[in-house]
């Protein structure tokens, strides 16, 4: 009746990944792209944790009388810790960029943003060699 646990877990990870990547590719709203990114990262993290899971094993922490028992693999868990925190940093940076894009173009529509950006490039390209432009200093 109920499918076995490995297919449930794997379908969870696959579902998150596919929903996330699909959102990344198909969403039109910049903010929603960010949400899709959060979901896709969650899927990859779940995949990593599953990679270290072991039947009939305890969490990788010694407790009680410190007798060795089979434990799940601690390495993927450490990697996922790192990946989660990295994800949050990238997410915050993306939000600040979205705020600036909204301020500049007044829209969150990805297609519209791309159009406006190309227009800006054309303008910059024309102005780049005109006399009287700012002395740029990079």
């Amino acid at each position, binding site marked *: 009746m109920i499918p076995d646990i490995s297919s449930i877990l794997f379908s969870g990870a*696959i579902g998150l990944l*596919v929903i996330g990547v699909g959102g990344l590719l198909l969403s039109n709203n910049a903010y929603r792209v960010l949400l899709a990114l959060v979901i896709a990262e969650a899927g990859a993290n779940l995949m990593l944790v599953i990679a270290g899971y*072991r039947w009939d094993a305890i969490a*990788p922490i010694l407790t009680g009388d410190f007798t060795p028992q089979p434990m799940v*693999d*601690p390495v993927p*868990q*450490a*990697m996922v810790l790192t990946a989660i925190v990295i994800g949050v940093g990238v997410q*915050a940076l993306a939000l600040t960029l979205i705020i600036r894009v909204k301020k500049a173009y007044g829209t969150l529509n990805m297609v519209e943003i791309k159009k406006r950006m190309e227009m800006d490039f054309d303008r910059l390209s024309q102005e780049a060699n005109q006399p009287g432009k700012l002395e740029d200093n990079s």
Partner: protein
Amino acid sequence: MYQFASFVFLLGFLFLISVITGFLPLGEPPMLVGQVIQNNAASETGASNFVTSVVLGYRGIDTLGELSILFAAATAGSLVLSGLKQKSIESGDAGFLVKSASELFFPLLIVVGLYIVLHGHLTPGGGFQGGVILAAAFFLPLLAKPSKSINSLALGLIEGLSGAAFIIIGLIALFNEGAFLKPFFENGELGSLISSGTLPLLYIAVGLKVGAELASLLNLLNQEEVNDS
């Protein structure tokens, strides 16, 4: 056209990883590295939480890279928003409930955060989780009284010094023991608070750094633009 291509790619991706995971065994990892770590970690690092010994010991430089990413994100975020004229939100104070809750929770969150940081090598938790709670503790008063703002000089100081502390502990190990980030104090008794060498010190540095970076990120997003046009 783009939508269609994305859709086809998505279907292919779904098919690919479904087929792949069909062949992957769950619950029987090869444990090539993991088993060795389980056998040696207690004696090599002295931490009873093996995830901590991996995060700070075996893979210490990953954690340093991660701290740098948070720092880079906070720095880049403030660089992105620096062109805007902005100020703290002036929507008046929040209601009585939020204010008294923030006063009530502030010390509690600090204590919980520090506890989690300090016991990172014994129980689940550690610098990241505790650091996030510390950041929340310092951000809470801002929610209650939006007109206040975090002292950015102090925040920058904590940011810089805690990150530097992590590296300097590593450098001391490099010059004394000959390898970067090699744990160098006595391991102590397994399972006691003062144990596992330099790992708790490193976790304190991580906690402060994570807390400071996240607080500055939250502070950054809690501003509002001045309408100049």
